[in-house]
């Protein structure tokens, strides 16, 4: 594989005539496509819709929390708002975003394949995703659900009087979309790698997507059966979680969190994969400790299944089980620590280009470190007794989800935008948006750590007056964060028409996906698929010391 600088730079002036976007145009061509690249774009537009709805719900909640009294929306509406925010963000934005958008687009190209293993199944997974989303939106329009995204029994089965069954059905259906995506990626990565592309020459994004697919495939079915059993108990009035029959509501929590904790690793692992790509490309250097970072992804996937009990330390789970889950939760933090340290070490002796994706990647490392460390507070039994179900938990998982996953998704989107559309986004606007997002995010969620330890419970519509100052800070931050997310939406659309033509490899990156024109042809590689001969990220910081990526 040629080193970055030798790749002949396609004269950046003109777009390739024939590529996957204009191969077959028309709505029908798009709705019946089996091209993994087009399916990725379909997913991008779909999750954008859900992200906007959930963000509106979040904005309304933040406005409500400006004042201690509940005077912006009623109790009932507030409960429905945080359920909408939770369900849509978790199942219809965070889980599908990197795997279904960037993963679908980039995985086949990165491993030198013409498409995923089962293209028709891939399209079916999008249709199932849209069907699940439609069901969930139908439930929201017809009055919403007020159980929270966790659907805890016996409230969800006996006492809630909202559209629990419809929303649970929507999530049940969307779960199968995740399963199919996971199954597709695992088979693709196992069976369709380019000649010479052994497991230890795979880019780290592929390793983290493989680990994510393992979790997608092994965790989601348990969510499906849990929601199905909850719905049956709600319809028939009798079920295994009903205390009147001697059933145990805690069993629902066990089955729900067996899925939902690995689900948070489904959300963060792809982000880690993207950051590994960005850090290496923009510090022009091979990753530090490739084997350890790849193994850390797999370790997170496996250990992630053993720790769910830390959600239930105060839920009358036995003290001894609490101790088992606590020590296991500490163990799962170690692979994440290894990854962060390895990214930091990669910067050593690199030649660091502060392009927009790099800003997002560095922001990710900063915020993910804080998010990860606050996770240790929740894994420590004694401290979790105090901060469980408080705003400390809210701040923790938003630092990882918004500070980590969404920053990485933005970084990945900016990094592969030239490959997806063939055009470059405006560099200055990109950097501006990244910094606004970073500032707005910290102002929004750092006060919530203090609020959490003060003891403000989560999902509160009204709160004692002494918590007001922190909530006002948080709402102020949320408005800045909102701007930070609107900017990319604007300049990405702008760049579709006016962005400069990017050429095959604007970042001089070494992945296989950069050795084909952008936007790539329908089958990714016109002649025969490339052969891989050496380890990934064969950059040389010395040569690229004065290469100016940011200004092309």
């Amino acid at each position, binding site marked *: 594989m040629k080193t970055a600088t030798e790749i002949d730079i396609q004269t950046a002036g003109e777009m390739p005539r024939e590529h996957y976007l204009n191969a077959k145009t028309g709505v029908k061509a798009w709705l019946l496509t089996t091209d993994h690249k087009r399916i990725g774009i379909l997913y991008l537009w779909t999750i954008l819709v859900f992200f906007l709805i959930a963000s509106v719900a979040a904005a309304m909640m933040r406005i409500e929390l400006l004042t201690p009294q509940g005077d912006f929306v009623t109790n009932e509406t507030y409960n429905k708002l945080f359920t909408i925010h939770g369900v849509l963000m978790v199942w219809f934005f965070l889980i599908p975003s990197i795997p279904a958008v960037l993963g679908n687009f980039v995985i086949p190209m990165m491993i030198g394949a013409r498409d995923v293993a089962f293209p028709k199944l891939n399209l079916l997974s999008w249709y199932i995703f849209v069907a699940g989303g439609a069901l969930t939106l139908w439930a929201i329009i017809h009055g919403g659900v007020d159980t929270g995204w966790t659907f805890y029994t016996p409230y969800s089965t006996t006492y809630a009087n909202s559209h629990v069954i419809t929303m649970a059905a929507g999530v049940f259906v969307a779960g199968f979309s995740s399963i199919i995506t996971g199954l597709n990626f695992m088979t693709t990565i196992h069976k369709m790698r380019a000649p010479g592309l052994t497991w230890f020459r795979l880019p780290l994004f592929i390793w983290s997507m493989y680990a994510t697919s393992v979790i997608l495939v092994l965790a989601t079915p348990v969510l499906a059966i849990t929601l199905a059993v909850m719905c049956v108990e709600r319809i028939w009035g009798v079920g295994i979680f009903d205390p009147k029959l001697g059933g145990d509501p805690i069993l629902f929590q*066990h*089955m729900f969190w*067996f899925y939902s904790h690995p689900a948070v690793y489904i959300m963060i692992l792809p982000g880690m994969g993207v950051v590994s790509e960005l850090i290496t490309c923009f510090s022009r250097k091979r990753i530090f400790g490739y084997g350890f970072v790849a193994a850390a992804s797999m370790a997170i996937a496996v250990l992630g299944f*053993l720790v769910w009990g830390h959600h239930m330390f105060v839920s009358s789970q*036995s*003290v*001894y*089980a609490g101790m*088992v889950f606590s020590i296991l939760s500490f163990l799962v933090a170690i692979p994440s620590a290894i990854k962060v340290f390895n990214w930091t070490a990669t910067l050593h002796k690199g030649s660091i280009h502060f392009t927009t994706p790099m800003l997002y990647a560095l922001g990710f490392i900063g915020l993910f470190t804080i998010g990860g460390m606050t996770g240790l507070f929740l894994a420590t039994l004694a401290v979790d007794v105090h901060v469980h179900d408080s705003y400390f938990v809210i701040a923790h998982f938003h630092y990882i989800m918004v500070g980590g996953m969404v920053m990485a998704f933005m970084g990945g989107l900016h990094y592969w935008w030239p490959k997806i559309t063939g055009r470059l986004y405006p560099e200055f606007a990109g950097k501006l948006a990244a910094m606004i997002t970073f500032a707005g995010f910290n102002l929004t969620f750092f006060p919530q750590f203090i609020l959490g330890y003060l003891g403000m419970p989560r999902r509160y519509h009204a709160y004692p007056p002494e918590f007001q100052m922190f909530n006002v800070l948080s709402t102020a931050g949320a408005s800045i964060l909102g701007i930070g997310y609107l900017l990319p939406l604007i300049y990405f659309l702008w760049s579709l028409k006016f962005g400069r033509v990017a050429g095959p490899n604007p970042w001089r990156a070494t992945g296989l996906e950069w050795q084909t024109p952008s936007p790539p042809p329908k089958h990714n590689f016109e002649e025969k698929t490339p052969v891989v001969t050496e380890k990934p990220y064969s950059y040389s910081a010395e040569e690229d010391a004065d290469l100016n990526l940011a200004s092309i």
Partner: protein
Amino acid sequence: MEKVVDPKIYFRTAIVLLVLLAATWMIAYIDLGPFNLIAALAIAITKAIVIALFFMHIQGSSRLLHLAAVAGVMWLLILISLTLSDYFTRSWVQ
């Protein structure tokens, strides 16, 4: 042409399975206390392995398929064992 399995293997597998069925049925009529459950599970696991090996052609297939076959069951054991660790130790509190 993919290799084809000799019918005698299929017939032998079916007979073994039916014998195991009869065994699990008969053992249920003897009061072994807790061993009833262990015997029933052992026979059921044997039947599952026999079906997987011969009817589902796991025997002689790639190691990857072996792994995929075992993975689901291993994760189910994780779910059951850690959940039971909660239920068994609830009564330990002094």
